[in-house]
C-alpha cells in the first residue's frame, strides 16, 4: 500500500502522466458530480420535509453547507499543495495550488451569499457580525490575499512560493481566527454536522445534504482537474507531446 502511494505520488509529479490519466476521469467525474447534484437537489428541494421552524427557507442549506465546507477544505488543500511545492519543488503542486485559489474563493463567496439570503428570513437581517460569518469573511480575505500576492509577483516561481508561504501562515491562523471570533460573538446555529456526534437532523433532510456535499466535492475535483490541465498545456506548450495534442 505504502509503496503504491509513493509511486502514485511520484507519478502525480509528471504533468504528462496527469494529463493523460485525467483524460479518462473527466467524463466519469462530470457524470458523478452532475448526477449526484440532480439527485441531491431533487431530494432536498422536493422531497425533504419542511423545517418546523424555518419552513421551506431551510432548503438553502443544500447549497450553503456544502459550499462552506468546501471553501474551508479547499484552503487546506491549497496550503498543503503549496507546502508540497516548497518542500519537494514539485511543479504540479504549484499549479494545483494556484488553480485552487479562485475556486475556493468562489465557494467562499457562495457560502457567504447564500448565508445572507438565508439570514434574511430566519434572523431578519442580511448580515450579522456573528462568529461564523466573520470567520468565513476572513477566509475570503485570506483567499484574496493569496490571489493578489500571486498576481503581483513578477517571476512565476516567486509567485508560487510567495503564495504557498502566505497560504501556510494563513492555515496556522485559521483555527485561531475561528476560535477568537467564536469567543467573541455567536448567533449562528450550531454546526449541522459533526463527525463525533449523532446528527440531530431527520434522515430525510440529512441524506440529500450528504449527497450534495459529495456532489460539491466531486464538482470541485472536476474543476480543479480541468484548470490544472489548462495550466499543464500552457506550461508544457513547447514539449513534443503537448504539440501533438494541440495539432490534432
Amino acid at each position, binding site marked *: 500500500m505504502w509503496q503504491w502511494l509513493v509511486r502514485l505520488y511520484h507519478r502525480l509529479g509528471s504533468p504528462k502522466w496527469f494529463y493523460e490519466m485525467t483524460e479518462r476521469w473527466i467524463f466519469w467525474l462530470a457524470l458523478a458530480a452532475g448526477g449526484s447534484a440532480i439527485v441531491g437537489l431533487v431530494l432536498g428541494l422536493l422531497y425533504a420535509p419542511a423545517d418546523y421552524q424555518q419552513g421551506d427557507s431551510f432548503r438553502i442549506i443544500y447549497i450553503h453547507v456544502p459550499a462552506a465546507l468546501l471553501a474551508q477544505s479547499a484552503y487546506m488543500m491549497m496550503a498543503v499543495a503549496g507546502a508540497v511545492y516548497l518542500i519537494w519543488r514539485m511543479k504540479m503542486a504549484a499549479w494545483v495550488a494556484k488553480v485552487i485559489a479562485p475556486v475556493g474563493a468562489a465557494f467562499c463567496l457562495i457560502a457567504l451569499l447564500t448565508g445572507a439570503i438565508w439570514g434574511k428570513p430566519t434572523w431578519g437581517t442580511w448580515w450579522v457580525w456573528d462568529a461564523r460569518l466573520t470567520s468565513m469573511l476572513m477566509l475570503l480575505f485570506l483567499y484574496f490575499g493569496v490571489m493578489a500576492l500571486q498576481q*503581483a509577483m*513578477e517571476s512565476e516561481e*516567486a509567485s508560487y512560493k*510567495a503564495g504557498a508561504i502566505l497560504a*501556510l*501562515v494563513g492555515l496556522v*491562523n485559521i483555527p*485561531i481566527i475561528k476560535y477568537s471570533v467564536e469567543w467573541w460573538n455567536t448567533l449562528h446555529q450550531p454546526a449541522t454536522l459533526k463527525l463525533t456526534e449523532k446528527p440531530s437532523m431527520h434522515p430525510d433532510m440529512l441524506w440529500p445534504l450528504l449527497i450534495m456535499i459529495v456532489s460539491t466535492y466531486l464538482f470541485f475535483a472536476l474543476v480543479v482537474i480541468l484548470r490544472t490541465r489548462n495550466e499543464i498545456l500552457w506550461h508544457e506548450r513547447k514539449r513534443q507531446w503537448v504539440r501533438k495534442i494541440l495539432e490534432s
Partner: protein
Amino acid sequence: MSLVRATVRRDLLLAARNPGEWANPLMFFLMVAALFPMAVDPNPEFLSKISGGVIWVAALLATLLSLDSLYRADVEDGSLEQWLASGESLYAMSLGKALVHWCISGLPLTLMSPLLGVMLHLPEDAYFALFISLAVGTPVLSLLGAVGAALTASLRSGGLLLTLLILPLYVPVLIFAASAVYHAGIGMAYNGQVAMLGAMLALALALTPFAAGAALKLNLSR
C-alpha cells in the same frame, strides 16, 4: 549572531537619526483616533464605550503603515544578499528585524496610549488593560507583519498589497485585545484575554520568523 546584532543596532540608529520613521506612525495613530469623535459622536459616555476598540484599530493601522519599509531598503541596497551569502540564520535575522520594528512602532504606541485614553474618555479601570494589551499585542503585529513585509519587499507597489495580506491575520489579536480593554472598562476580569494574547505572542515568536526567512529568500529569485 554578530551580524544580527549589528543589523539591529544599525536599524535602531537609523531610526533614531531619522525621526520621521517612528514619529510619523505615531502622528497617524493620534490623528486616526481623533477622527472618531469627530465622525461618530463626541459624547463622553459614548466614547468611553468604544475608546478601547478605536485605540486598538488605530494602533493596528499605524503598525501597518510603518511595515512597508521594513525590508525594502535592505533589498534595494543589497544587504539582503549579503545576509544570505553570510550563511547567517535568516530566522534570527527576521526575528531581529521584527524586534526593531516593534521598538520603533509598537513600543512608542504603547507608551503613548494613555494620552489617547484621556482624549477618548477611556474608563479609568481600563488604562492598565490597554497598556498591557498593547505591550503584549503589538509585538505579535510586528512579527506577523514582518512576514508580509518580507513577501512584498521587492514589489514596487507592495504597501497596499501588504495591508491586504496581513489584516485578516491581525483579527484574533484585535478581538482579544479590544475585549480585554472593554472588560476592564466595565470592571470585569481580563486576564484570560491577556493570557491569550501572550499565547499568540509565544506562537508568533516561534513560527513567524520561519515564514519570514523563507519569504526573504524569494526576493533574490527575481
